[in-house]
């Protein structure tokens, strides 16, 4: 673990260059989203058949989960390929006592740290908009980190396996984008036709959205919540197992 922390430190060190812009984005992003969707679009939605609760309250946790997913996916895509191919920093680390799994864990720790900061800011903004309706909402914070990791672990496996950066276009267009739109983020997945609905249920993002929505609305119950957590953990574990293999195959040849 101490080896992994040394690799984590590299990412943290590099982050210092961009932290100001990054923090501003993290604050402005949710404010814009909540204003446009929660307040703006929400007025229309609430006048129609609606989603059972004020639209702002409905969409806010969805956007938090989707933001965590996007951030985590991005942080485990190009930066991983860069560390292998462009800055070659992973090769530098491997010339020291660090092992390929330390590089993987160190980087995922960094992604977790980024997720923790961004979702904490987000939750504060959410509270400002009056979208938190239960003390349990605090658990949406670790949940957001978990949702992120459930995506970043398998994506890091993909990135270490990928030979050409063009492959990321496919990932973002055909996986991330549809998941962002159709995993219950903006409307209940029960509105989706059969087939699409089942796919949505299987995505880690829907599990995250549903978990966090119940937490912020105060409607969470124990077993369904634990089931979501277990399912997300499965994605983390599966992703890390795969990534340990693709990292080793790519770097220790």
């Amino acid at each position, binding site marked *: 673990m101490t080896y992994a922390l040394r690799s984590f430190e590299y990412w943290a060190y590099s982050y210092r260059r961009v932290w100001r812009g990054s923090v501003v984005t993290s604050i402005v992003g949710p404010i814009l989203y909540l204003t446009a969707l929660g307040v703006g679009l929400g007025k229309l939605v609430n006048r129609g058949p609606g989603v059972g609760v004020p639209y702002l309250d409905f969409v806010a946790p969805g956007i938090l989960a989707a933001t965590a997913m996007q951030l985590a996916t991005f942080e485990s895509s190009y930066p991983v390929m860069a560390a292998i191919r462009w800055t070659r*920093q992973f090769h*530098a680390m491997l*010339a020291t006592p660090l092992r390929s799994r330390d590089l993987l864990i160190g980087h995922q720790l960094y992604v977790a740290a980024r997720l923790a900061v961004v979702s904490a800011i987000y939750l504060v903004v959410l509270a400002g908009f009056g979208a938190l309706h239960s003390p349990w909402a605090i658990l949406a914070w670790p949940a957001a980190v978990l949702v992120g990791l459930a995506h970043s672990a398998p994506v890091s496996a993909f990135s270490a396996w990928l030979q050409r950066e063009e492959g990321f276009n496919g990932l973002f267009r055909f996986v991330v984008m549809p998941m962002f739109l159709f995993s219950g983020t903006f409307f209940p997945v029960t509105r989706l036709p059969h087939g699409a609905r089942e796919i949505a249920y299987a995505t880690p993002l829907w599990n995250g959205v549903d978990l966090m929505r119940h937490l912020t609305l105060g409607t969470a119950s124990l077993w369904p919540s634990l089931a979501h957590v277990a399912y997300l953990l499965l994605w983390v574990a599966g992703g890390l197992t795969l990534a340990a293999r693709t990292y080793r195959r790519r770097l220790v040849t």
Partner: protein
Amino acid sequence: MSDAALIHARGLSKRFGELTAVDGIDFDIEKGEAFGFLGPNGAGKSSTMRMIGCVSPPSGGTLRILGLDPVRNGPEIRARLGVVPQQDTLDTELTVRENVIIYGRYFGLSRKECKVRADQLLDFVQLSERAKDRVEPLSGGMKRRLTIARSLVNEPEVLLLDEPTTGLDPQARHVVWAQLFRLKQQGVTLVLTTHYMDEAEQLCDRLVVMDRGGIAEEGSPLELIQRLSSRDVVELRFAHDPPPVDEQVFDGRVSRVEVLPDRVLLYTDDGDALVPVAHERLHPQSVLVRRSTLEDVFLRLTGRTLVD
């Protein structure tokens, strides 16, 4: 002797699928020496270096580094090695000094220690003035020196240098050589690969000549030249295709003749004495007398030149 060797290899092999990059080589590298792997691109030098660097598991044979097994004790061994890879692995967005500091952290050195060593090492490679600059705009020679400084941050017992001066201009190469020579004087064991014979002659106490994954010969540069070449070489260039040449023409004064696409090489113990004879009998456009080098040794061993 081989038990005490710092790096010990027997029958060491590396295969990538169908391709055999390193084909059962034996060598021993002793403490404090500068040991070279000389050979053309693709001879298996870098694959050997990566195995010694514990980032590439051997496909066969025995390899012991500092008495340890690179597969099982990788992190322990790497903690005592310095590595200057062929391709830079500097973070060009960070500053010169930050690159050394963060690298020191990988070895578990305290932040304070990293800073102290970074300043000393940058001074050693004459980069102190650029310490606070980003790496990106540095010249190739400066980046190489920074990589060398960085590789020394853990005070390694063995320094592995894969093609340390490839791509550098002559002046930058001499600066790097001077620094490596100082390290050798300080007792650091140097292991390097190169396809430059002058680099091997400048730096190596002992070397192996590699070709097609195997070791063709082993010895000190001087010994190899004495054993496998003559004292002098007479190089002949012709305006048109060279005439057929064989040793007989020179009445036993030429031990060997090499006909290359652009010139003919005559190996002899007295080059100057041969010049008039060569002029008279072969009518070359130009004649050059020089001492034998490792290039000639390589040519003798493999029938090919080092740098294509």
